[in-house]
């Protein structure tokens, strides 16, 4: 079965923040909310600086879904994790549960208290009628319905950020690592490596 995933290649990411801008622009996201962000470590240290673009990882067994008191998350058959803003009460529990800091909250409620949650939709809109005005207003563009890939990945200048079906993303990852001579595809990577004590 297909599962939509992002992958950011830290060898290629140059901290240009093009993905962040593309995302904000495409979905008209208000100030203070960043569905995608770029993290840089060892800034300015030659050979050691690394950047990574992160957003919602559309987890297979999503902790945000487990914790939401109003049960407003749903996982599409293609693995994209979405939520219903008409149900969300803005409690922020998804933020506590999410390992990746993806849920975002603007301060828009009464007296500027935090409003409902906003997060990366993999450019797949939300539960409102597909490609309707309502859907755009609540969740932004629905590029998946239009047969396109997410805006961030399509705008990435170095193609560090790739998005699509996990098996396709995996092929690109393996190709790149093999070409670099890393052969890391044989080793566990990411969370699995981290949790197993590297």
């Amino acid at each position, binding site marked *: 079965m297909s599962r939509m995933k992002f992958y950011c290649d830290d060898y290629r990411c140059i901290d240009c923040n093009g993905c962040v801008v593309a995302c904000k622009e495409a979905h008209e996201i208000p100030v203070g909310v960043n569905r995608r*962000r770029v993290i840089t470590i060892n800034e300015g240290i030659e050979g050691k600086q690394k950047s990574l673009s*992160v957003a919602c990882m559309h987890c297979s067994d999503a902790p945000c879904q487990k*914790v939401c*008191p109003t049960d407003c998350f749903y996982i599409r058959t293609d693995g994209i994790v979405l939520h219903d803003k008409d149900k969300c*009460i803005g409690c922020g*529990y998804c933020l506590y549960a999410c390992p990746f800091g993806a849920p975002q909250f603007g301060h828009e*409620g009464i*007296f500027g208290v*935090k409003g409902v949650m906003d997060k990366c939709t993999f450019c797949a809109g939300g539960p409102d009628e597909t490609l309707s005005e309502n859907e755009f207003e609540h969740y932004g563009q629905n590029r998946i319905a239009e047969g396109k890939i997410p805006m961030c990945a399509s705008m990435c200048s170095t193609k560090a950020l790739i998005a699509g079906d996990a098996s396709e993303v995996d092929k690109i990852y393996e190709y790149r690592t093999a070409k670099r001579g890393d052969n890391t595809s044989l080793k566990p990577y990411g969370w699995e490596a981290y949790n197993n004590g*590297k």
Partner: protein
Amino acid sequence: MESKTFWECNKAYILTALGLGVVGFVFVGFLMIMDWGYLIQYTMHALIGDTSGVLTAPASELEQMINAAFGPAYNTVAPEIIRASNERQEYIWYVFFAEIMIFVFLYIKNGRVTPTITRPNDTVQVLTSFQRAVIWLNIGMISILVLTGFNITWGLRSEGGDIPRILREFHELTGLAWIAVWLVFTVIAAKDMKGWRKNSTFRHFLPGSFKPSKRVIWFFYAAMGAALCFSGAMIITLHPSSLTHADVIQFRRVLLYLHFGASVLIMFFILDFVYASAVSVKGYLKGLWSGSYPREYLEQVAPDVLDDLKKAGRQ
């Protein structure tokens, strides 16, 4: 005067400590999935101002990146938050039911004290309008906080939407306003500060003295209130942006857990207040509203209050 044994003097404290000890032991030992070692070390780091949760220097680039992007040690606190917020939905009913049963048992055992009043017009002014304002503001705000707080816990039943969201936002705002009321009430109800009674500021403190069981209630109100105010206000203030996420998220998880715990514990003592004021003694609630009680009422159920008023020259 008859001298009391250690048990008689400290019964209320010992029973409270035992009760909380047993519940705490079962809870911590068998139900929680918190990494206690990490939590203790982490709290010490947070106290010196480092809320990031990075306790040891990262050993690899991957770990360094995880620390910078998401905050470290996800598996130490977050799984407990997930467990707690799920199980609260299911099981808090039973906790509240058990708490209410304790008061039903007390009622069956002790009944309702009904003072005999033959001279209803001979009344004594016990509470000043300031004290009444604080007490009723406290009652009103706590009721709002309980309703709007558990409105979040039971979001599954309301299924979310605009009304539960506005109620939740109202919880944040009422919570911030309650901090002042909690503080003032904690101070005016600190009845054991004998020194204060000598000067004119006495009129701001509630008259009478605490029996141990009531001192426990006051203590819990002060301690759980402090925990709720601190955790609630910090959760509101330390709201992370995409750039500050890794620095504060672990701290917020701990704070939310503190808020969860304190909200359940304070409920028992709020229920005790309801029982003491509305059920256990007839006429208590009426006096809380009007500020005065019949002299005979005070002679029969609260002679210490009458004594204090006499000492302060208000009688």
